[in-house]
């Protein structure tokens, strides 16, 4: 990972070589031909999760039964390097034909004309957005055009350790809990389990799992009409809730989380409850306490409302695929029911295709995973993004997370973050 300045230079030089590439038309003319045998050639499919690689290979195998003359090679890069690599590839018009995309990066790629729209595929009925949750279609739509085929989705719920609650003689969480109940339970859990080195909450204090759902539940917002929601009084109340959890010693601070991830404490039986997504189900199954955990819906805000963000990966196609026909055929297949069912059976991800989640829910019956599916149906809001989400995500990480439990009140921190964020949003093009 050493990046001497010369290597950096090489990267930057590579970027510049193609700077004059000009606007590209999208690969809109790429339709899937009627005769699958006609589709020939090689494809690259880029992904970042090694746990999901076997399922993706299964999907490729199934795809090849229908399209025997297309060779798909899967290219894996770890998440930390994935988007760095894609940006470099994109600057030299070398993007993989089909690849995974996430919410925070989507608009950056779409606005810079790196992605193909789904128009021709939806017109030809190869892909029907009605098959996926509405919030996910919205997440991958920019200026009225959809670019991504939702692959899977995740929402947030309350995970807790049944054994630790029983040990501390605290009543187990229910779907009727409010934030006050969460905090009251934390007080009791700390008194009973604290001396044994066990935390009341194993919350990571991350945006997606912790403060976004809290801000939305409380009637606040993260971003609206290009403005930051961190100065909104309702948002600030939600932030203060988390800050108080840290201050009371119920939730590990950002520094403690950086040393030992709070969710690892939870899975190691060293924390009793946390807000987290369905993506941790596979980590839960690997824990030696795997039968102690279960899930209920998030506690409600004082106003009685409950919201979660919904996020999901989408499959997208490069604006300049080397083999448009084969890429379109593969993308359409990835968006279909067969591919969704393969994913669900593998238990690695919760498929976005409506009605295919049963296998995922059954992959861990003890966790009540249908809570996450119901959340998506009933009280989920799209994951907040803008054209250059990464910039203010970094701000949240640097300025907001460390302030939880600190001496400054959130009524002071929030507006300060908001003004810097608004400045960054103003610079977006």
């Amino acid at each position, binding site marked *: 990972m050493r990046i001497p300045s010369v290597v950096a230079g090489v990267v*930057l030089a590579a970027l*510049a070589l193609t700077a004059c590439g000009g606007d590209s038309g999208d690969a809109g003319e790429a339709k899937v031909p009627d005769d699958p045998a006609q589709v020939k050639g090689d494809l690259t499919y880029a992904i970042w999760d090694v746990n999901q690689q076997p399922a993706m290979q299964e999907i490729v195998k199934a795809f090849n039964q229908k399209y025997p003359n297309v060779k798909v090679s899967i290219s894996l890069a770890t998440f930390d390097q994935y988007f760095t690599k894609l940006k470099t590839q994109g600057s030299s018009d070398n993007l993989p034909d089909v690849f995974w995309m996430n919410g925070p990066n989507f608009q950056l790629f779409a606005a810079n004309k790196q992605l193909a729209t789904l128009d021709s595929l939806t017109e030809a009925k190869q892909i029907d957005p009605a098959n996926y949750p509405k919030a996910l279609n919205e997440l991958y739509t920019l200026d009225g055009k959809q670019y991504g085929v939702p692959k899977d989705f995740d929402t947030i719920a309350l995970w807790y350790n049944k054994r630790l609650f029983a040990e501390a003689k605290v009543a187990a969480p229910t779907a009727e809990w409010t934030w006050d109940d969460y905090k009251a339970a934390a007080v009791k859990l700390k008194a009973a389990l604290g001396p044994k080195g066990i935390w009341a909450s194993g919350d990571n204090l991350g945006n997606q799992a912790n403060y976004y759902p809290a801000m939305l539940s409380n009637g606040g917002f993260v971003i609206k009409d290009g403005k930051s929601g961190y100065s909104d009084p309702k948002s600030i109340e939600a932030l203060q809730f988390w800050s108080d959890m840290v201050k009371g010693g119920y939730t590990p601070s950002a*520094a*403690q989380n950086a*040393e030992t991830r709070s969710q690892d404490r939870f899975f190691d039986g060293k924390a009793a409850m946390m807000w987290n997504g369905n993506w941790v189900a596979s980590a839960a199954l690997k824990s030696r306490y795997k039968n102690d955990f279960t899930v209920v819906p998030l506690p409600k805000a004082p106003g009685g409302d409950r919201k979660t963000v919904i996020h999901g990966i989408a499959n997208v196609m490069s604006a300049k695929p080397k083999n448009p026909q084969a890429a379109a055929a593969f993308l359409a297949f990835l968006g279909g029911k067969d591919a969704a069912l393969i994913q669900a059976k593998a238990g690695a991800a919760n498929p976005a295709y409506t009605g295919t989640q049963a296998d995922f829910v059954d992959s861990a019956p003890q966790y009540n995973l249908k809570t996450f599916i119901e959340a998506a149906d009933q009280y989920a809001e799209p994951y907040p993004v803008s054209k250059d989400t990464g910039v203010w995500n*970094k701000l949240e990480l640097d300025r907001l997370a460390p302030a939880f439990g600190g001496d400054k009140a959130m009524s002071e921190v929030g507006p300060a973050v908001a003004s810097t964020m608004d400045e960054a949003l103003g610079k977006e093009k």
Partner: protein
Amino acid sequence: MSRSRSADGKWPWLFVLPTFLGVLVFYLWPLLKTLYDSFTETGPFGGSTWVGAANYSQLAGDSEVYRAIVNTVVYTAIVLLGIPIAVLFANLLNRPGLRGAMVYRTLFFLPYVAMPTAISLVWRIIYNGEYGVLNQALGVVGIDGPSWITEPWFALVAVALLGLWMSIGFNMIVLSAGLKGIPGELYEAASLDGASRTQQFRAITVPLLTPSIFFLSVITTIAGFQLFDQLFALLGPTNPVMPSTQSLVFLFYDAAFVGNERGYAAAVAVLILAVVGLLTLFQFRFQRRWVSYD
């Protein structure tokens, strides 16, 4: 010079051409390109517009840059301490008649050949404030250790100690070679004159090692200013201590790949190049005062 240059014709050029091409394509061109980019605003997918010196005035007004320079200097200074330590160890290992010298040499060299990221991940566990072996050990002697990787100055020191530890092996190999080059007669003559081992070390060993020490200090300074991988892997990019611990190269990475400001990142890269260039020039200027090539 026994033969004039013209007598060789174009042959020498032909022989250096492969190397020269490599230098041209992988060093010189990117260097010039980076310099050019530093005067532009370059988006995440290319496409640049000329903005003059705007990136440099942003650089001058960015308090993070000053903090990063201080951090990088502190890191480099601590890692430079590895040179005197390596001189002592190399001297011990080169004592005539030492058993198993090769085993020790291999052990000292191992950290240098291992992957920095892998080592950093192991040290992350060692440094852990609650469960780490380091604080357990300190606890035995009654010291309540800090959270090494999440407290501002401790985190920087923790990264630097790791860098120092990793550098010792390479330093020792270079110094051992230097030691082998010192003629044995000098020591014989000195002991005949009644010089003690310490006196011999100070009057013969150290002065005759100065060329190696000079080489190491130049190399270590350059490497120190390129601090990135240990910092990234040991502390983690989401560590709240990062804003106050980041190095210049980390700042570059952040600007280029997180902030998507490639023009500004190029300006940071040029700054790093300028600082390293100046320091190296400075070292070469002052070597005459203390390096002996006799």
